[in-house]
């Protein structure tokens, strides 16, 4: 191909990229209206008010689609629980949840958020799953003055990733999840419960989560008494980790922690085997959250450790449906034939918190709804939610514990909670074990 041809290719790809987005957008819109149709068909009750609109942005397609996999199940459950509607300030209103796919793309997330704000005129906006979804949506809401509740993104990535000032905070946007300080605490608790030389190797992905972790975690772990070897930030498309593995071997690393995308971790972990690097514990945050990601590793997934933000064994109940975490997961497996995943609880909780907020709002207008968010004191499926005692004004912390993957009973792998020193109300399932090499 000559140079001019290549230029044509590049131009074309841009033009075509837009075309593709346009097609998908119209598909997504028609999909969303089809989903919303049942809510519209409900006949208004006596003295019924206007429909309340909830916008919900989540990644249903694209690289992080696993986070949005349960969305249909969750929306169905919430719609059923809502029935005819909810009572706000003495009037019954039907509720319409308008769901939009972020396509795992921050630009797309911002775009659909803007549509929800300007075209659909939503009363409250929800979003969850990673900075790429949560941050652009929250930014749009902050600009437009729309109340917004988000979850499932470490709070530093949410707050500082959006250039938040801890003194001022944000006016319209609120978030619940844990932060890097919780990760550091939980991981070190896990590692300290096994004898080791405390030599720790760190490796992070070059994305907002990894960059934030790279700034904070090495120093924190060093203070906790670990000898830290930081291998740096890798690009998501990396196919080779041999340089970093050599570095870890040289430093006699026994514990590896990193922020990984699942394919990058699979490459890394396979190469560890090839290079004869055998750490006692490997805790790849983000990479082994999903049972499918662990199953993809084959037998080498046993005893990998991970952060656990939610599990069927968490002693919490949905305030909306009354289901316990265990009942909720059982129902999910019954309906979808799939194993539970951690985002399940948070997706549901985001919706139920919004509904609690709306019920308490003094009026059906933005400022009143925002004030109701700030006043929240609610027991959700993922634990108590309130924004009075968080690290910053707009953040509520939820409990985090440590888990380890074991050979499963009805699915290839089960996640056992092995350390809950940081949240004693959650009971451990078993005791942490080192990785076994044959």
């Amino acid at each position, binding site marked *: *191909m000559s140079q001019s041809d290549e230029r044509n290719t590049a131009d*074309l790809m841009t033009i075509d990229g837009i075309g593709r987005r346009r097609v998908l957008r119209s598909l997504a819109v028609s999909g969303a209206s089809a989903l919303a149709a049942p809510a519209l068909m409900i006949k208004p009750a006596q003295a019924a008010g206007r429909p309340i609109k909830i916008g919900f942005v989540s990644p249903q397609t694209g690289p992080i689609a*696993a986070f949005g996999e349960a969305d249909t199940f969750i929306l169905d459950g919430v719609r059923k629980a809502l029935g005819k509607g909810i009572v706000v300030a003495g009037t019954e209103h039907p509720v319409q949840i308008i769901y939009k796919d972020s396509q795992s793309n921050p630009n797309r997330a911002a775009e659909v958020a803007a549509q929800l704000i300007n075209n659909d005129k939503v009363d409250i906006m929800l979003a969850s799953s990673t900075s790429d979804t949560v941050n652009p949506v929250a930014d749009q809401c902050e600009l437009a003055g729309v109340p917004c509740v988000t979850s499932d993104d470490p709070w530093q990535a949410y707050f500082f990733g959006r250039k938040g000032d801890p003194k001022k905070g944000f006016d319209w946007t609120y978030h619940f999840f844990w932060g890097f300080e919780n990760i550091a605490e939980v991981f070190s608790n896990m590692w300290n419960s096994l004898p080791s030389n405390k030599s720790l190797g760190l490796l992070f992905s070059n994305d907002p989560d990894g960059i934030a972790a790279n700034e904070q975690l090495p120093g924190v772990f060093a203070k906790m008494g670990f000898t830290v070897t930081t291998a740096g930030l890798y690009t998501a498309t990396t196919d080779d980790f041999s340089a*970093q593995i050599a570095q870890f071997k040289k430093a006699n690393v026994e514990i590896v922690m990193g922020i990984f995308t699942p394919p990058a971790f*699979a490459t890394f972990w396979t190469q560890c085997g*090839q290079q004869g690097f055998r750490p006692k514990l490997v805790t790849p945050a983000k990479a082994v959250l999903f049972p499918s990601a662990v199953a993809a590793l*084959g037998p080498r997934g046993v005893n990998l450790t991970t952060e656990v933000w939610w599990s069927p064994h968490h002693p919490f109940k949905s305030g909306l449906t009354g289901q316990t975490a265990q009942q909720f997961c059982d129902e999910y497996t019954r309906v979808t034939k799939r194993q539970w995943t951690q985002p399940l609880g948070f997706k549901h909780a985001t919706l139920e918190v919004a509904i609690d907020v709306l019920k308490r709002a003094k009026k059906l207008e933005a400022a009143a709804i925002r004030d109701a968010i700030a006043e929240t004191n609610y027991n959700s499926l993922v634990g108590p939610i309130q924004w009075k005692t968080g690290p910053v004004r707009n953040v509520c912390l939820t409990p985090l514990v440590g888990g380890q993957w074991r050979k499963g009973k009805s699915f290839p792998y089960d996640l056992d909670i092995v350390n809950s020193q940081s949240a004693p109300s959650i009971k451990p399932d078993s005791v942490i074990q080192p990785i076994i090499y044959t």
Partner: protein
Amino acid sequence: MNVMTILIQGTLLGGLYALFAIGLSLTFGIMRVVNIAHGDLITLAAFAALVVTDTLAISPFVALGVVVPLFFALGYLLQRGLLNRTLGDSILPPLLVTFGLSVIIQNVLLEVFGANIRRLPVGNLETASLQLPAGIAIGVFPLIVFAAALICLGALQYLLYRTRLGRAFRATSDDPETAELMGIDNRHLYALAMGIALAFTALAGVLFAIRTTFDPASGPIRLIFAFEAVIIGGLGSLWGTLLGGVVLGIAQSIGAAISLEWQILAGHIAFMIILVLKPDGLFPRTQD
């Protein structure tokens, strides 16, 4: 991390990139078509192999016996039924159609298989390695991938330069009109070329799916390295494609040894430098 390790790991990585690039190199060399769906076809092959290994309970290597012929047929039909209709004076229609194909493949895979991450298991072979002196370890599987790239390129070289079919391919590549006057059916020939290209793509997809995990969205990332390998090596040149892959792999290894942030960037920089110094690549076969 000594120089030896950098070169060995970089070369092995280059074999992977070359394997990704063979199909792309072939379709461009013969039909002047840049197949934007190439990365997604690699993923599609991985999923096809997954279905075969799951239903027949056989090793992924045995599954190649099913997936490779299947992809040959798919390639033939794809070219004959769809892509041939887009060929003409302009390079744009085939680009647009393959771009659309890329979107379709990703979304169909997502619809059928869900977003879950998959991998083709091959047991201990995944982590087996050879120990060399001076503490250098070479993974057996990366070695297999490199050998596969060499064998594929050798086989293709033989096909193109030692057989009647190869002569027809080259004739059509050089001058389609005259080739047609000599009694070559270009439509059939193009379809055969795409079939062969997809057979190699299927092999690349299966080996890729053993090497690391994949999901419906894994394809596009694979496309960029394949492109770079083809362009560094010189469009249409087979051994140039291997060299292009190796240059890319070694550049990335050197980058990684300096600082992890430089790993992928170093590959792109090597690509840029070669584009500036030799816009036609290292071994340009075609001068158009």
